[in-house]
């Protein structure tokens, strides 16, 4: 059986696609279609891309309302649904806080712990309560100066859902897509199994599987701060910030979420990292078909 494989870089990481039983010519055609779509979304959603919609919103949306196309309208509506569902744990307007801590661009590598006063001041323009959607006009507006958004916590999931649509429209039944290791889309099953079996690896110890998922037409997203600590004044901080308190979440484990929608898996894995166990259960109670794996990791590095 021919196994078609292709990869490309997008959204700051590597996108890999495996199509069992697909010949190379057809595979290249499909993967080109997939790549075009993911790159299109990257350009539209990235806050770094100079012509992106997100960049435009961050520059203009406080001064005046910005009209949204159908795609962005439904994406922002979805963001609000998840903001409400997770009681604010999922928040696209957290960017000023990320930048205050220096986590906006991890490569800067110069971290200074912000003072409590700075954090409090920053929190005054952090949060989706300061973002307003106008349903009639299909426009978006920031209600406070300094509000900034970032779609990093939903972008890859949204892209994977689009990819799923492309593959299904082309009649592809079995596919395995790895978007940077943290986001997976698994359609159908392994050609020699009844599902796709995925082992979440220990972030430090090669070959050690911490949790095993059985996937079929579903997606997983794994969040965690392991391996991504930031040292400030001799202390270790994770890179995931609590949008309400303004400080890094003190948890060293991994949270992996499986859902039929890649968007839901993506959104919930980050949100669950911020929520405690009972809050997680409350959110799970309002969803269907979502599975969660809370994976503790022994010791902090």
């Amino acid at each position: 059986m021919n196994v078609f494989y292709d990869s490309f870089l997008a959204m700051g990481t590597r996108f890999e696609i495996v199509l069992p039983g697909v010949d190379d010519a057809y595979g290249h055609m499909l993967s080109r279609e997939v790549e075009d779509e993911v790159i299109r979304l990257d350009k539209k959603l990235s806050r770094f891309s100079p012509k992106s919609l997100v960049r435009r919103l961050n520059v203009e949306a406080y001064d005046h309302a910005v009209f949204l196309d159908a795609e962005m309208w439904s994406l922002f509506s979805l963001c609000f649904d998840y903001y409400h569902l997770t009681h604010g744990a999922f928040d696209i307007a957290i960017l000023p806080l990320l930048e205050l801590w220096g986590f906006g661009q991890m490569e800067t590598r110069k971290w200074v712990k912000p003072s409590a006063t700075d954090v409090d001041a920053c929190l005054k323009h952090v949060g989706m309560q300061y973002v307003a959607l106008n349903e009639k006009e299909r426009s978006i507006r920031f209600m406070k100066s300094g509000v900034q958004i970032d779609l990093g916590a939903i972008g890859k999931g949204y892209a994977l859902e689009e990819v799923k649509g492309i593959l299904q429209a082309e009649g592809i039944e079995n596919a395995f897509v790895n978007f940077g290791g943290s986001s997976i889309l698994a359609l159908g099953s392994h050609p020699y199994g009844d599902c796709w079996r995925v082992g979440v690896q220990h972030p430090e110890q090669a070959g050690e599987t911490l949790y095993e998922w059985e996937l079929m037409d579903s997606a997983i997203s794994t969040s965690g701060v392991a391996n991504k600590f930031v040292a400030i004044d001799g202390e270790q901080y994770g890179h995931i910030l609590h949008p309400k308190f303004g400080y890094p979440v003190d948890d060293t484990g991994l949270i992996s979420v499986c859902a039929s929608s890649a968007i839901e898996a993506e959104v919930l894995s980050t949100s669950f990292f911020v929520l405690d166990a009972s809050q997680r259960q409350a959110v799970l109670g309002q969803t269907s078909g979502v599975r969660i794996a809370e994976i503790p990791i022994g010791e902090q590095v």
Partner: protein
Amino acid sequence: MPSVLNISRRAFLAQLSVFAGALSWIPMLVEAADRSKTSGKVRVGIIGVGSRGSKLLLHLQTIPQVKIVAVCDTYQPHLYGAKKMTDGHARTYQNYQDLLDQPDVDAVVIATPPSFHASITCDALGVGKHVFCEKVMALTLDDCKKMMRVQKETGRILQIGFQRLFDVRTIKAYEAIRQGKVGTLTCLKTHWHRNDSWRRTVKDPTREKSVNWRLYNDASGGLMAELASHQIVISNWILGAVPESVTGLGGINYWNDGRETHDNVSVIFRFPNGVLLNQTCILSNQHYGVVEQFMGSKGTIELEAGKLYLESQEPSPGIYQLIQSIEEKVFRTIPIGGASWVLNNNAEPKAEHLVEGLYMPSPTQLELEAFVESVSSNKLLPDLLDQSYQASVAVILANEAINRGKIVHWPQENM
């Protein structure tokens, strides 16, 4: 693996027309192969039977439905030589107008210096002849436009001799690029390097300009027209665009023998999306020879070598294990996440051959067969004339950029 050596010519051509929508002139070749036994004769006159013209004559003679009835040249020895090649059947003319007056000439092949292309082509089309004219179309924008206009007005066939559009490697490269094999094309580089003077010995000094026409600006577009144009036409076609602008430099740094045209040029064409085509042509070193490199985000095509190199695309370790498990037909867990992996950059680049087997029909033969088919069916080969026009215009702009030391922009189109 079946070698193309063993498959028929028609099947070979049919195989090329998989991408018929894009390679719109290839299906005509298949028709030509089918028709060759049945259709009536196409009576051809050749204007200019020097080295290129007599080569075209020999190619044309192998096409069953072609009859060469007339040849024309201002130089008697060429004329006799050509007549001899037709076993004395072709009538000879020293003035092309006399050849055009012959009612039994259906089509003419023009292989004169390019400064004569426009006038002879327009005169021939004007009296109802079909025309195959060697590249480049002409040396001025006005002449190129005039040729396009007269072709439209007369409805006769006009084909320009950019034979590399009929090169199997080019067609395969086009196909591979359209399939996304090299990712997004970002950079094109071509060389055409020779180590010879381009000068021919002339015994009769009055014939210097007609023999060594390539060396004089009023008759020749120099290196850009004679060599680089073949690579420009492919670049335009493969990118599906015309250049937005061009800049370049040139000069004479070795063959300083009284010639006017440059012996070395370097030009840069800018295409849409910021894609640059970088070209050099020299006449003083042949080490790099003829090279076309089409570089994309996922791979590189070396056209002349017929090779495709993929960028290192090793799957990440977990995906590598997944692919292995499918190939071994076993169901295993896919390890995902974990310690970061390092890309292996030491791997030797692997080359794929664009064309399998050794059989490569001559591009010149194919373009002439296509022309004959085009005449027989009275159908222009789709897109081909536009491609030829655009490449010829690009040459003119490049020469203008070199001569004026400026960036020259693609002209606003008004035919």
